[in-house]
């Protein structure tokens, strides 16, 4: 009995498959970084729309935020991968398919752009109008003010909250195995099918994710505090 338990828990199988599993983890990171870039760019765009002086643009920004912030990431991944190509294919009268990587990155990027847009917007609105007027009075263009005065402060202000969002996004990358993106979870389920030993494999995966996220979030928080303290004393 105790021997079976020991065998069940024996995590060494994880070590045997380390190259495959590491490759899977690398895929998680790859999807994470690409989706984060998409989410940050779209989020900034939507936030700028939301603080625009023109009402239709503001409405467009709000629409973007509300749609994607309220879409469950799992549903979005499935929808983008299976439904979107059908729609495009029908419209263009051709067969159209999306690479699972692309689907995953688009879906997660859009969902998280909804969250980042709100963080960006709060950060932009926290910059006192007087600082912007000081820039205008020196003859700065709006673009100059955005890039040199507003965004550098927004980034510093956003850091604590966005670290949490980056962590959520990283966790969300584990659902891409559902559309056969070969990430760590995908590799683990493949190996489980051969080895029939789910317990050590899934436990190992959980431990790896846990360790990665814990270390990364501590490092990021410490770095961001040091950087912020200089100006928001």
């Amino acid at each position, binding site marked *: 009995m105790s021997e079976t338990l020991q065998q069940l828990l024996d995590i060494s199988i994880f070590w045997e498959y380390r190259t495959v599993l590491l490759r899977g983890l690398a895929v998680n990171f790859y999807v994470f970084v690409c989706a984060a870039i998409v989410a940050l760019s779209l989020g900034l765009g939507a936030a700028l729309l939301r603080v625009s002086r023109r009402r239709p643009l503001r409405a467009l920004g709000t629409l973007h935020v509300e749609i994607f912030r309220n879409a469950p990431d799992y549903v979005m991944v499935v929808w983008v991968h299976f439904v979107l190509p059908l729609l495009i294919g029908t419209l263009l009268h051709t067969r159209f398919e999306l690479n699972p990587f692309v689907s995953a990155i688009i879906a997660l990027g859009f969902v998280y752009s909804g969250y980042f847009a709100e963080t960006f917007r709060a950060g932009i609105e926290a910059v*006192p109008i*007087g*600082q912007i007027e*000081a820039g205008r*009075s*020196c*003859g*700065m263009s709006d673009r100059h003010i955005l890039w040199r*005065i507003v965004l*550098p402060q927004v980034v510093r202000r956003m850091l604590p909250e966005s670290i949490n969002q980056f962590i959520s996004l990283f966790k969300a990358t584990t659902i891409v195995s559902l559309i056969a993106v070969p990430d760590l979870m995908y590799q683990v389920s493949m190996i489980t099918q051969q080895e029939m030993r789910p317990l050590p494999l899934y436990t190992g995966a959980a431990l790896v994710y846990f360790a990665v996220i814990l270390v990364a979030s501590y490092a990021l928080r410490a770095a961001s505090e040091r950087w912020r303290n200089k100006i928001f004393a």
Partner: protein
Amino acid sequence: MSEVPTIRVVDVHKRFGSLEVLKGVSFEVHRGNVVSMIGASGSGKSTLLRCINHLETPTTGDIFIEGESLCFRGDAAGSRAPRPLSEINRMRRDLGTVFQQFNLWPHMTVLGNVIEAPNRVRGLSRKAAAQLGGECLARVHLEDKALEYPARLSGGQQQRVAIARALAMQPKVMLFDEPTSSLDPELTDEVLGVMRELAADGTTMIVVTHEMGFAREVSDRVMFLHNGLIEEEGPPDQMFGAPKSERFRQFIAKYLY
């Protein structure tokens, strides 16, 4: 005087919805002159200053900077089109503004604040801008704080950095909107001291202030604004010595006792 005035304000009206805040203000400021603008809260002083640097667009009227219209671009045929923002930004380089709330950029060092616009708006090299920035910081006696961040400075020091930042644009005129109103009394003097030195150096200045002593001693001309109109103006000795309008008399009485 045949010289073109540095600033000429011509019949400026400004409305916010149904509220008419400026009701036709005209005046001129010549090179090297210091003009103090005083008046009760809500009389339109800030609004007038904000029209001069085009943070507000006058409803009607115009402002001329060394003879050039700020609000309109006229062509040879005599038609007038509103001036595009890019040209307004170019003209703003000639106006240095100091606000009540300092409005320094907190993520930049003191020197960074001062050289940002000379470097990236006027296009000076970083080295030339740093040289100029150092000189401007010396004029406000803060050369040793160049590498500090604004959050580490006192209010008086922050306001002096803001003055240096405006000076670094080498403007034709400096606009001050109550530069000492958010400072503790003991910090007011160091800022007023710097402004006196600027005036003595021949800087053209328009100063909105509640500091009657400063207005009286430093300005060439005082303007008293009341309900969106210049109620009385003249040299300070005449204004304070023999006020003509009853309202101005009441206004200064509050500062004397």
